[in-house]
Each structure stands twice: as structure tokens, then as C-alpha cells.
């Protein structure tokens, strides 16, 4: 017997491909795997109040560039009257406002929607090694001693930086450190000192300035962290507590020693950063994120299509699932129906009518149709005209049901128009033929079988998660295709055959 096992690889390939795209979209692009999920986003706003001094005014604001763990979904500037240029760089961005004459006080706004980003992106490029600090005595000796001492008790850059910061912030500084600390008067000085001492060991450092996104704040406090380069990665330390690691809620606004805003020709009366949390649909955020990351994967979704087309595709994309149910019911359970996939189309009609009402309407139309069909039989019409007559009668019946139910104020009858009338007509035709050939019992049994399969397909297709998956993750259907191909090679018994062939089992037992 010739065996072809190509189907195994094809089926596995399809399943793997579908699953891979699905997982990529969930993990990397943050598409929510379940419908109606919400996640947090932040509106961050910088407000610059300027009061005029004299002459042309230039104001520049450092913009967030690559805040690790976050992305900027939308940005806008409110600055009427000012010319605005945004200087884009990979690791630094800057907005420059300019106006030739400023008459009154003016407020400039920068606003951004900040969403969580799943990518691990570095906030700064690979740095050059800093020159040794040029210090006067006795500082130079003290720095050398400190570096030597700390180096003796550390293994690598990471532990060196941690140990140095610990000495700097420790409650009992030694005399070398004491010497430096006498010169330190502010937090800013302390960060600078840390940088100088680390530069003494030729370790590149970088200041990270940013805010915490943990609660709504009218005036968010700017914080500074210290990044230390270990040759491969940037390590982040809190210069006060010496704790290592970038806090999850820390939003890096800018890096380096410069100021957040610089203003010439006017007085910067106030610079205020505010944050506000917003709950947005995870799906919407994921789409914005995918757009920012320029991911082609986000194109694999019907969400790009016009709304009406989306609605159509939601139904179309559900059909493979319904068909999968039919495959299972036919080849594994062993049920039979009129028309191979007619139950799926009937199930689609049930989506509009709800299950029980749909079944009632279907039974009503089919039984009335059968009644007329039996009458037509007596007229001895030829096959095609008779089928045409049945279709026409079905349409008339559907119209009548709609009109009558509308008069009684029931809207169920209105959705009857979505019944696939050709399918219904074919069911009527097949039922009447079987009725004559094999009797009413067989005919009704098969009719009920079709209806049962339609109901099962409907129940599966009406699961919300499936409807959501096929629209947002159409690749799920690759998975369905893979499963269908695999099922296509099932040559074992059907469930109903266990009963059908029961006599054979008993016989076998007697012999043994």
C-alpha cells in the first residue's frame, strides 16, 4: 500500500505557522489574546510658561527618544504663533520653538501618549571610554586610593559601580570619601561626583532623567538615575540608594548632562510635567505599538479593512471553524446531513436569529415547504421548474413570516430573511425525495441530523473568543486548516460505527 506522509509535514507546518504568528503578535506586539482586555497608558504633558524679555525667543525642550520599556504612541505640540522644528535623533530628540517677537506671556505644551513597549531597546548608544578626571590634589590622590580600594573588593564593572555608590551613600564614609563629600551640596553634585569617581576607573556613565508613571500627578518630580556601561550593556543604579535596576515605572525622558528645557530671549517662568493614567483597549494600544514598530505582522488582521468589510470577514473567517465541526461530526462521530456543508450555512443564519428561534423558523419553513412540495409532486412538473417553484415558495413563505411576525411586534420573524433560501429549498427537495424513497422516518431523521449539525456548528461559531481571534488573528485559520488536513487522514472507526458493528464484536468474543 502506497503511503504518502506529506500531509503530516504540511499539517504540522500550517499549525506551527499559525501558532507562531499568533504568539508573535501576543508576545512581541502585545495583542491581547482575549477580547475586551484593557491596559494602562499614560498621557504625559510638559508645560512651559514663558514671559517675554526682549528680542527673538528660542525655546527648546528635550523630547523622550527611546525610553526603555515604553513607546510614544501619539505626540502633539500646542504652540500657536511659534515656529516649531523637531530634531530627530535615535537617542536624542529635541523640539525647538522660535518666535521673532513675544508680546505676552505664552504657554507651550508638549503632550504624548505613552504606552508600554515589549521590546528591549537601549536608551543610549555604546559610549566611548571617558578620560581620567583631571583633579587637583588632594582630590586626585583620594580618587586614586578610592578606586584602588574599591577595585580590590569588586570583581567586575557591575560590582565596582555598586561598591563605589555604596561608599558614596554609606552612613560612615571613610576619610577619602569624606573629602569629596565636603564639596557636595546638592543631589546634582552627588551624581556628578559618582560620575567622576567612576571615570577614575575609566567606566562610562550616563545620567538618566525621567519621571515615575505610577499615579496621576499635576507636577511630576523629575528623578535622575545613573547608568553605568559594563562593556556590553547599560546598568542602571539609583545614585541615592545604590539599588541596581531600572524601575518598571521609570519613564526615561532624556539622558546626559543637559537641561530639560533651554530658553533664550524669554524667561522660563515655570516648567511643569504632568502625568495622567488612561485606560485604553489593549487591542488599540497593540495596533498603535505595531504601527510604531513598523511591524508587518500587524497587517495580518482584518482590522485594517473598512468597518463593513470587517463585519463580513468576521463571518467568513468563522466558516472554517464551523466546517471543522462538520468534519468532526461526519468523520469522527459519523452523522450525516443533507448537503455536505449546508449545516454551516444554516448555522450562519442562526447567528442572526439566535439558536432556538432559528431552529423554530427553520422547522416552520421546511415543513411548510415540504407540504407545498408534496402538492407540486402531484402536478408532475419537471425537475428544474419544480425546484424553481420550491425556491419561489420558500421566498414567499419567508416574506409572509416576516410580515405576520412584524404585525405582532415580534422581530424574530424579520431575521428570517437571512436564511439561505437556496439551501433551504435543496433541503426540502432532498427531504421529499428521501421521504418517498425511504420513508418519512428516514427523511425526518436526516432532517433532524442536519439541524443538529447546524446547531453544533452555530454553538462553536458563536463563542466570542473565536470571533475575536479570527478577526484579530486571522492566522488562526492556518491552524484550523492544519487540523482539518490532519483529520483528513483519520481512517479509524466513527463513533456510530461502534454501535453499527456491535454484532461483530460479540461474535468474536464467542470464538475466543
Amino acid at each position, binding site marked *: *500500500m502506497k503511503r504518502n506522509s506529506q500531509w503530516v509535514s504540511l499539517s504540522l507546518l500550517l499549525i506551527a505557522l499559525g501558532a507562531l504568528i499568533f504568539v508573535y503578535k501576543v508576545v512581541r506586539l502585545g495583542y491581547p489574546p482575549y477580547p475586551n482586555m484593557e491596559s494602562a497608558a499614560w498621557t504625559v504633558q510638559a508645560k512651559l510658561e514663558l514671559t517675554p524679555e526682549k528680542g527673538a525667543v528660542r525655546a527648546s525642550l528635550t523630547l523622550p527618544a527611546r525610553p526603555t520599556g515604553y513607546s510614544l504612541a501619539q505626540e502633539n505640540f500646542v504652540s500657536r504663533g511659534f515656529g516649531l522644528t523637531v530634531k530627530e535623533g535615535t537617542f536624542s530628540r529635541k523640539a525647538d520653538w522660535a518666535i521673532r517677537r513675544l508680546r505676552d506671556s505664552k504657554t507651550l505644551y508638549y503632550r504624548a501618549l505613552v504606552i508600554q513597549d515589549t521590546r528591549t531597546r537601549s536608551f543610549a548608544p555604546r559610549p566611548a571610554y571617558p578620560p581620567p578626571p583631571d583633579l587637583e590634589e588632594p582630590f586626585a590622590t583620594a580618587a586614586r586610593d578610592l578606586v584602588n580600594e574599591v577595585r580590590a573588593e569588586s570583581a567586575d564593572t557591575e560590582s565596582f559601580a555598586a561598591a563605589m555608590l555604596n561608599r558614596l551613600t554609606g552612613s560612615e564614609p571613610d576619610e577619602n570619601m569624606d573629602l569629596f563629600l565636603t564639596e557636595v551640596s546638592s543631589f546634582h553634585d552627588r551624581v556628578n561626583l559618582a560620575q567622576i569617581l567612576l571615570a577614575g576607573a575609566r567606566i562610562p556613565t550616563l545620567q538618566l532623567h525621567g519621571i515615575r508613571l505610577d499615579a496621576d500627578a499635576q507636577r511630576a518630580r523629575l528623578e535622575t538615575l545613573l547608568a553605568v556601561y559594563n562593556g556590553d550593556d547599560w546598568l542602571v543604579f539609583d545614585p541615592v540608594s545604590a539599588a541596581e535596576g531600572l524601575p518598571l515605572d521609570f519613564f526615561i525622558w532624556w539622558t546626559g548632562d543637559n537641561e530639560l528645557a533651554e530658553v533664550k530671549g524669554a524667561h522660563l517662568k515655570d516648567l511643569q510635567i504632568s502625568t495622567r493614567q488612561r485606560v485604553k483597549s489593549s487591542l488599540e494600544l497593540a495596533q498603535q505599538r505595531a504601527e510604531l514598530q513598523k511591524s508587518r505582522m500587524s497587517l495580518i488582521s482584518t482590522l485594517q479593512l473598512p468597518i463593513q468589510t470587517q463585519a463580513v470577514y468576521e463571518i467568513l473567517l468563522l466558516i472554517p471553524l464551523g466546517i471543522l465541526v462538520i468534519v468532526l461530526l461526519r468523520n469522527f462521530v459519523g452523522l450525516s446531513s443533507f448537503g455536505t456543508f449546508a449545516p454551516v450555512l444554516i448555522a450562519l443564519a442562526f447567528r442572526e436569529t439566535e439558536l432556538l428561534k432559528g431552529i423554530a423558523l427553520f422547522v416552520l419553513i421546511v415543513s411548510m415547504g415540504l407540504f407545498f412540495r408534496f402538492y407540486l409532486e402531484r402536478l408532475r412538473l*419537471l425537475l428544474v421548474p419544480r425546484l424553481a417553484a420550491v425556491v419561489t415558495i420558500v421566498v414567499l413563505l419567508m416574506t409572509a413570516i416576516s410580515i405576520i411576525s412584524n404585525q405582532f411586534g415580534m422581530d424574530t420573524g424579520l431575521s428570517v430573511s437571512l436564511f439561505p433560501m437556496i439551501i433551504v429549498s435543496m433541503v426540502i427537495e432532498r427531504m421529499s425525495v428521501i421521504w418517498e424513497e*425511504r420513508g418519512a422516518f428516514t427523511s425526518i431523521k436526516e432532517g433532524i441530523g442536519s439541524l443538529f449539525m447546524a446547531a453544533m456548528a452555530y454553538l462553536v461559531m458563536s463563542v466570542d473568543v473565536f470571533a475575536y481571534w479570527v478577526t484579530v488573528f486571522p492566522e488562526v485559520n492556518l491552524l484550523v486548516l492544519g487540523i482539518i488536513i490532519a483529520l483528513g487522514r483519520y*481512517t479509524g*472507526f*466513527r463513533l456510530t460505527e461502534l454501535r453499527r458493528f456491535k*454484532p461483530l464484536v460479540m461474535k468474536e468474543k464467542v470464538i475466543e
Partner: protein
Amino acid sequence: MIGRLLSLHKAGVLGLNARNGDYIFHYNQRKYYPLVDDKILCKERMIEENLPVPELIGVLREMHEVGEVSDMLGDRKEFVVKPANGSGGDGILVIVGRQGDYFLDADGRMVDNETLEHHITNVIGGIYSLGGQPDAAMIESLVHFDPVFSRLTYHGVPDIRVIVFKGYPVMAMSRLPTRRSHGKANLHQGALGVGIDLGTGITVGGVSGNSAISHHPDTGAAIAGFHIPGWNRILDMSARCYEAVHLGYLGADIVLDRDLGPLILELNARPGLNIQIANRRGLRHRLDAVDALGDVQHTPGERAQWSMQTLGEAARVAQIAS
């Protein structure tokens, strides 16, 4: 449930999925299907191969030809109308006599000319064909079944179904019409299935639907132990069908005519599985036995002999005893 699954497997029972996937799909090439699905083509093929078939009276392919049916029939009193592409015995009208202007069908009901013509137009329209394509109506002579069967049948014509795998007859049963089946030899329609010992041609026992039955419900005759005449010839004819239509897995339907002996009524590319119930045997072990033969070239006669010697009950008993 798992237990029954395993014991069915052990008994070598062939399920529908296995029949389709492992046998029909592998051994029956699609291009040869029309040779059996179209009963007219099939009959022509059988005649070319010198296999005996019931006489073809005429074929009606177009609606406008329907009016000519009485000319075609002449004064024949007995004939059968069949859809060329029918399935499962649907659409077969058996006329057994004439009474004035009326025909008499197998149940003894009067059929007027108009009803007959309407039936033929339905057949041509495709109401009984697979997929509903337009079809042709075939009129052939009525088989007068061998009177040896008279105690085992109610009206209609009993037939013998032989499953032929790669040219080797592997299982056989007889289908006996009952009152319930309206004289039709179709198990779905209520005919009895009776297993036949391949080695001897003696019936072993029967089923109605899925339940065992020992006596014919209408005639009361015992079903088992009946010797089918001309068994060698029947198996020989079945084996020759393989060369005629090139289908590796087929079912041959054979009737015993009083005067003409065994005739091939039709062939089936997707023979049903109830034959296993009628015989109380699974097909799989026998199909495996044929597969085990490999590529030996046997004549149809040799194949029939092989089947009688290897797949009969005597061989089975001997095997169990040893």
C-alpha cells in the same frame, strides 16, 4: 467504549473512514469511476468483456425522448427503469406486468403511462443522480430470478454482492428483498443481508438492519444452510470484473436468472460495509491476506480458486484448529 474500539479493531472490522482512506482512495483511480457509476457505460464494458448482463432495452437521455418510451417498450410486460447514475437503489422502478393500459409494479400497484413518463423525466432531470446532474434513464429487461430463491424472497429479485479486492473475491453476501424493502435488494431499504461462505457458496446467517435474523420475515424459511447454485461461476465472474473496470476495490452485484444463469447487474466503486455484519466477519484480515500475496500474476479463475480455498470457512476452521 475504548474496549469496543479495540475489539472491533481486533476483529478486523473495516470502518467507513478506513474503507475510503485506505482502500477506495488507493486502489480505485478516479478516471475509472464513470465505468461503474454510469450503469450504461458499465453494461457496455461488461458486454465487451463477455460478462453476462441483463439485456438493455433502451436508453432515454433527453426529455423529448420520454414520449417515445411506449414505442421503445413495444408490448413488453416486464422491464426495469433505472437512473444511469443512481445510487443506493434509488429511482429504480420495477414493472412486472401489464393490465390493460396500466403497468404493474413489484408491489402490485397500478402504474399508468403518465406516472411512468413522470418517473422517467425525474430520472433524466437528475433527481436520483449523485449531485443532481442531469442523468439518463436506462430500461433493461427484468431478471427472472432462479426459483431456488423463491422461499427466501418476497417479490423483487435477490442478488449476490461480492467484494473484489485486486481481483480476488474477499467476501460475499446475498441480499433478499422483503415486504419492507418493496422488493428491492437494498439493505438500507429493509432487505435482508445474508452472509455466504466463500469456500462453498452456502449461506451462513442473516441480518435485518443491524440485528441477526434466522428466518425470512415474509416467507418464514430458514436463511442459513442454503446452497447458492453456480458458486464457482459467480466468483469467477466477480474476479473478471477487475480486468473489466480496473478498480482495485469494488462490489459486484450479481443476480441469478432462471434461464440465463448468473448475470452482473451492476458494479459499485464504493461498496457498503454491512456485508461484514451479514457475514459476522471483518474485511480487514482478508484484505491483508490478499495484500500479502504481493505482485503475483493470477488469472481470474486462479484468483477465484485462491479465494475459495483460502478465505472460506473451512480454511478458517482449519486455521483455528491448528
